[in-house]
């Protein structure tokens, strides 16, 4: 398990190689890449996003989520990296990799991981558009 919150994400291919090396039982790696969209939900042109995290709690929460997924779906391993700081349009902000024996539990785990990442992990996102800025919150 690897969890990293940083201003710079690691190279995705390196992460893929890293997770595959962990076990010879791995038959599937499902990858999620989150990146910055150029148009906001309100149709405004996005200039950049700014992320901030309560890092120690974010890491702990992600560790618990991955432990839950291991128990629930029997996945073998997971890596999550999340960017903090400023991210321009097109820039990658999240990498999540789920390694499992078979694809089915990998897909289910990845969906649950990302949903919980968005709702439980203390990372905040501010959207800066041509018309202004606002914090994006799931209320």
């Amino acid at each position, binding site marked *: 398990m690897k969890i990293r919150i940083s201003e710079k994400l690691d190279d995705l291919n390196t992460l893929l190689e890293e997770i595959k090396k962990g076990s010879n039982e791995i038959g599937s790696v499902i990858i999620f890449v989150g990146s910055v969209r150029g148009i906001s939900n309100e149709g405004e042109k996005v200039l950049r996003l700014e992320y901030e995290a309560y890092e*120690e709690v974010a890491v*702990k929460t992600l560790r618990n989520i991955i432990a839950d997924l291991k128990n629930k779906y029997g996945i073998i391993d997971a890596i999550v990296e999340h960017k903090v700081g400023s991210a321009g349009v097109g820039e990658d902000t999240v990498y999540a990799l789920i390694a499992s024996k078979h694809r089915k539990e990998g897909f289910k785990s990845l969906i649950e991981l990302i949903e919980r990442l968005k709702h439980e992990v203390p990372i905040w996102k501010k959207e800066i558009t041509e018309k202004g800025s606002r*914090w994006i919150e799931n209320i």
Partner: protein
Amino acid sequence: MIRVKVKYFGRLHELLGVREEEYEVDEITLADLLLNYIPSRHESSANAWKENIFVTIRGEVAIDKNGMPMLKNHVILVKGKSQDLTYKLKDGDEIAILPPVGGGTK
């Protein structure tokens, strides 16, 4: 007197213009800290603070049946553990006030 550290995230640190600060207080509750001490130190943002943090009715903080102010979608962690507003602060506590986290659309 006890000394505690308070951390603000997201729009709260923007509102108050500070990411973290210390308070020297008596052994008060979290409710006292949020309702009285923080707005007193940040007078110019006091009303906006209360409206961000608490459920308000016509500008007044709503009180629940136990006499506690009603939080609005915020989580309060003390040393990384969620606490309600009746929690009594202890020396060395680190309090983090977390606005709702932001994810995005599905």
